[in-house]
């Protein structure tokens, strides 16, 4: 990101000013202190999102609207701030610090997270966190530990700031590894669940499927026994049917014979009657002998008729009896036949049931087995899958670790070398510090300042060299109190070499008389604040229009 222009408008005092910046070094100078250099630079970074509570007295920033014109990778836009409200580009939508931070970080492609003090988890960061590495403030940055006081980062774990921020910018952050570790932990617990499920399934295999077998056998036996009974009963019935058939057959033969007799008897009776009538119709004018013989004849015929009549009645009775017996026999036979058929059909159904039930049981067993195997396989595959993923993650973690380690070593070497160089220049300063050790600086007084300066320069060098994220850098003056001109000279030389000569956009505030310590300063963008007047009334009207809807 490059800041091209900065506008400040005090809408109460109706004063404003606009400042143009360039890529590379921008020197903010003034003849005196309290001209407003700090105000300008603090306001600039305030607008960017670096919260500060150390505005100089008299700077009524709350009555001011600040607007940055930025260019980030070709995209030009604005950041407007009024107190705690931000506006981005041309949008009317106002953002609070959190939303603004989200936007800024997205713009700069920063995905950093820092561990919160209170909780275990990593948290998204506010704009202040990354910005804190790029602003060396004259008031807050020279005491305690490096980078500790400039921004309000107390919500994060102490040993994570600024260490983790540096690791992120230098590309040696373990954030990615942490994410992978998280993912790995999730996968491992998921795998454990699958292992438990497999275990449970294994237990079920023995107890569940084993029992089923027994049940099938038992029912089969019962059913077969039932079928046997039915068939035995049917066989008995079949015998009965045969008996009845024979019975009926015999009766029918008898009946036939009797009927034949009956036909003959009826015929004889008809003849007897005919003969009887013949006798009766004979002329009765004949003599008594004939009459007597007629009488005898008639009576004989009658006698025969009586005998045969009785016999006929007997026969007819026998016929009726036989017919009834045959009918009963037939009825009984039909009954048994009906029951027999019914029984056979039941037995048949039962047979079918046996086969069908067997089939169903087998099928069910098979299905259960299949389902069981499917589930087991599924679990196994999932387990394997997860194991593979875990293994991959481990691999990635290892690779990352290696890369990070390697890069860390490299940067560390650079750090050491750079520090050594500084040690040569500032021989009295104790510069025995390890890379990324941000413990409090122990030295005191002027030596302390030298230490701070060296370390800041070394770290800033590393940022310029290794960070892919480019943020404008501010050095709001070297310490004010240094009187030793040699040290001053050395200090400004370092600053020049490290900061001003770099291609990055930088802002350095210094007094005009210190310019001499900067060689080739005329090559840099110089913004001089004259007459202690940072904001001007006559610029208000023009600049008012830069803020849309200001009224």
């Amino acid at each position: 990101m490059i800041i091209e222009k900065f506008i400040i408008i005090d809408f109460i005092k109706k004063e404003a000013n606009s400042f143009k910046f360039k890529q590379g070094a921008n020197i903010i100078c003034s003849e005196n202190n309290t001209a407003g250099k700090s105000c300008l630079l603090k306001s600039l970074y305030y607008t960017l999102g670096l919260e500060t509570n150390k505005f100089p007295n008299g700077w009524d920033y709350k009555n001011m609207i600040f607007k940055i014109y930025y260019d980030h990778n070709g995209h030009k836009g604005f950041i407007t701030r009024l107190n705690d409200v931000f506006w981005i580009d041309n949008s009317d939508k106002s953002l609070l610090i959190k939303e603004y931070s989200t936007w800024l970080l997205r713009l700069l492609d920063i995905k950093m997270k820092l561990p919160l003090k209170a909780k275990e988890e990593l948290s998204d960061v506010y704009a202040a966190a990354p910005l804190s590495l790029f602003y060396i403030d004259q008031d807050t940055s020279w005491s305690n530990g490096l980078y500790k006081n400039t921004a309000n980062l107390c919500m994060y774990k102490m040993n994570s700031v600024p260490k983790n921020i540096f690791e992120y910018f230098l590309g040696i952050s373990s954030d990615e590894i942490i994410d992978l570790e998280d993912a790995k932990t999730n996968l491992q617990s998921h795998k454990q669940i699958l292992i438990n499920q497999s275990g449970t399934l294994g237990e079920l295999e023995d107890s569940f499927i084993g029992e089923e077998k027994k049940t099938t056998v038992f029912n089969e036996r019962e059913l077969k026994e039932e079928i046997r009974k039915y068939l035995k009963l049917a066989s008995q019935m079949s015998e009965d049917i045969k008996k009845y058939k024979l019975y009926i057959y015999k009766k029918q033969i008898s009946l036939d014979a009797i009927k034949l007799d009956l036909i003959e008897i009826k015929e004889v009776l008809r003849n007897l009657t005919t003969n009887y009538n013949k006798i009766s119709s004979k002329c009765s004018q004949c003599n008594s002998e004939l009459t007597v013989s007629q009488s005898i004849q008639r009576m004989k015929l009658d006698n025969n008729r009586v005998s045969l009549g009785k016999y006929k009645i007997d026969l007819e009775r026998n016929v009726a009896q036989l017919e009834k017996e045959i009918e009963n026999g037939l009825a009984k036979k039909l009954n048994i036949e009906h029951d027999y058929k019914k029984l056979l059909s039941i037995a048949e159904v039962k047979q079918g049931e046996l086969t069908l039930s067997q089939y169903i049981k087998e099928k069910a067993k098979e299905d259960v087995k299949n389902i069981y195997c499917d589930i087991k396989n599924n679990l196994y595959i999932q387990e394997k899958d997860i194991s593979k993923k875990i293994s991959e993650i481990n691999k990635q973690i290892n690779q990352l670790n290696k890369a990070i380690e390697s890069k860390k070593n490299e940067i560390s070497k650079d750090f050491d070398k750079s520090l050594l160089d500084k040690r040569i220049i500032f021989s009295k300063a104790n510069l025995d510090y390890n890379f990324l050790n941000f413990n409090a600086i122990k030295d005191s007084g002027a030596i302390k300042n030298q230490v701070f300066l060296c370390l800041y320069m070394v770290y800033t060098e590393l940022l310029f060299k290794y960070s892919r994220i480019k943020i404008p850098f501010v050095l709001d003056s070297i310490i004010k109190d240094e009187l030793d001109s040699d040290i001053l000279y050395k200090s400004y030389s370092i600053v020049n070499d490290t900061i001003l000569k770099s291609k990055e956009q930088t802002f350095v505030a210094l007094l005009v008389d210190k310019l001499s310590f900067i060689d080739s300063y005329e090559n840099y963008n110089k913004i001089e604040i004259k007459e202690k007047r940072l904001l001007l009334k006559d610029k208000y009207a023009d600049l008012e229009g830069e803020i849309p809807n200001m009224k």
Partner: protein
Amino acid sequence: MNLNGGVNAIRGFNYQKAVISLIAILNYQKNNFELFIENQEDAEVLINNTHTFIQIKGKKLGLADLIREKKGQKSILFKNLSKESLQESRYKIVTFESFLAKDKKELNSSGASLIFDEIYEYSVAQKENITDKLKEQGFSEAILRNKLSKSYIYFSPFSNNLNRAIPFLKGKMNDLKINVDNGKGDIALNELFKLIDQKSEILVDSEYDYNPKKKLTVEELDVIFETVDSFEVKDRVWRAIKDKFTIYKQQKIEIEGSKIIILHRSLKESVIQEIGSFNIDQDEKKLIESLYRKVQHLGNEIVLYAIIIDIVAERIQEELK
């Protein structure tokens, strides 16, 4: 074999025939018994020269009915008492026992008559009544009074109900040791009725000359009862020998026996020729068997046995006569 309501085998039953039959059965063994059917009266009976005119009325009557004129017809008593014969006759009305009670009560029992076991004569008052009525109808009083003194009523122990009459008649026959079992009674009565019918139909030559053909002779009655007896003889002969045959053969022989008169007459003649004469006074089974052996070549075993039994029975009957 069991009787199947012998009464059902009776043909042509009516009250008149039943009464005449009764008269015949009760009296045919008496000396000089003659019975004329529908000559002048329904029946005329002659026993020991005593003549009776019998009017038979199959109705429930009262005295009034007997003396009532109907549709130009003379009254019953008028007609009955008008009859004349060559000798002095008696006059009887035969009717149902269910005669009008008050009239019946007034009658006087005359005890047994020649013909019937108990007859009734009219009371004095009744006679007066009858006389008056018949006089009105044109009857001469003097003759009437004379005839009325010989006029009686007999109440038959049966009405025109066949189911009562026949058993009664059979009972009477049985009393005379006439065999009436196994339908024999029916056969006898049927024949008796037949003869009565026949004799009824014969025309009356003259009132006083009795056409012998209208007479139911003792001979004729003897024949009936003897014939019936002969059937009994045959039955007895059969009973004596039948257990020598199987039940099946027994039945067959009985049947064939009943068919002889229709189917086996010529064979019977042949058998008669073949067996000739034989001694009937011997064990029947042995007799039958020996006779069979003589004729077994002539035909069917069953038929031959039936014929032999028939012949043996006839021979015995002849001997018993």
